[in-house]
């Protein structure tokens, strides 16, 4: 009985085997894969020697002088002590280095997370006060009067809602503002100076005013 069953199994296998071979030669196989999106963003304040504040003037430019809260390739963009109604340039303020594997490129948004605040009752608007303009990786011919663009106060949701000097907030968007940059290549570098126009009405304060500028990079 066992021998009879073994013969049957062998016969069935012999019949099916050639059929399988023929199918393997003409069939289609669906291969599907996913590529994990890579998006790396490095933000470096005070990215080059010579960073710091220059009062706005025409003609020969005074040397840059940062405030005590700035340090080479890190820390804060510190304009130092400024005058009400004064206008200033800050050289080599921020370097944005972005790498993605999205062949369509990416967009960069940059906004003030709040108004300038001294952590107490004093404040003045970031919109109209703080500006950005293109700079170079290691040379910079800008002045306090070189054309620039406004940083605006975000209309997104900021967390934490109350600005904290020592920690950066996050902004969540339901819709993005106008892009600061649009890159059609997956990797790019941007170099920025800042300008500050201090309102004549900015309250004098012994405390340090601060605002976090938040950059957001989104693949296209």
């Amino acid at each position, binding site marked *: 009985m066992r021998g009879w069953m073994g013969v049957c199994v062998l016969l069935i296998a012999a019949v099916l085997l050639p059929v399988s071979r023929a199918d393997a030669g003409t069939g289609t196989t669906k291969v599907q*894969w*996913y*590529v994990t*999106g890579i*998006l790396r*963003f*490095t*933000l470096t*304040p005070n990215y080059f020697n010579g960073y710091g504040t220059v009062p*706005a003037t*025409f*003609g020969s430019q005074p040397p840059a002088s940062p*405030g005590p*809260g700035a340090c080479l390739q890190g820390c*804060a*963009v*510190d*304009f*130092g*002590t*400024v*005058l*009400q*109604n004064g*206008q200033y340039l800050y050289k080599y*303020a921020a370097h944005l280095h972005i790498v993605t594997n999205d062949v369509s490129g990416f967009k960069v948004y940059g906004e003030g997370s709040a108004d*300038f605040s001294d952590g107490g009752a004093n404040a*003045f608007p970031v919109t*109209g006060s*703080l*500006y950005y303009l293109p700079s170079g990786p290691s040379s910079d011919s800008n002045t306090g*009067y*070189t*054309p*620039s*663009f*406004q940083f605006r106060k975000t209309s997104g949701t900021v967390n934490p809602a109350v600005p904290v000097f020592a920690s950066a*907030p*996050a902004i969540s968007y339901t819709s993005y503002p106008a892009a600061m940059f*649009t890159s*059609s290549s997956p990797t790019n570098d941007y170099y920025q100076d800042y300008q500050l*126009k*201090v*309102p*004549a009405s900015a*309250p*004098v*304060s012994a405390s*340090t*005013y*601060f*605002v*976090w*500028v*938040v*950059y*957001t*990079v*989104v*693949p296209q």
Partner: protein
Amino acid sequence: MKSLRAPFVLIAAAAFSVAVGAQALATLQVQRDQISVTVQVNVTPAVGMRSPGSPPPIALAMAMRARGSAPDYVAQAQVQSAVRVQTVVSPNPNATLLYYNTPAVVINQTAGTSATYSCAYTITVDKTSAAWSLDDGLSNDFAAPSFPGSDLANNTYVQGATPQPTSTPFVVYPNNNNAWYKFASSIGKKTYCVDLVLTIPSSVAGGAYTTNAVYTLYF
């Protein structure tokens, strides 16, 4: 003849002293303050023009996509990073000598058109104890890439008064031998309304362009 000579000499001497005095007064005036109003123009391209970096026409976009099959892409939503900007504000006793009502003006306009923006901003001089003069001009042509700053004209008049009959193109400082345009001399407090008249050439591509309207006070 002799009787005429003495009055003539007197008149000539008087005229000479007036001229020298006026010149001395002018040269004695020194720059006391300088402010700028940012003028940003968001240009919509003229019909038939395409902005640099804008998507290619549909047929071309389809051809590009058909050429290769891109892998399914799972996009990482977004990445954020932040920098703290800080400063200490100190008092400026001269902060109200010369000031504006807004630090920046944003204009949205189509290339190939001309438009007037009434009292786009005001400039106030507040100096009661001395005669002063006020210069204006643009820091640069519109950048970038560029279109001429002289395409922006101004009609500047004392607030509440009648505007000038015509507007005057701004001088662009670096294109004007590094010189400003003197548009007012007075004493006391005066606020000026600045109407802007902008004509954008039709060849200007879509995008954002900026310059600074600079005001310099002397007394």
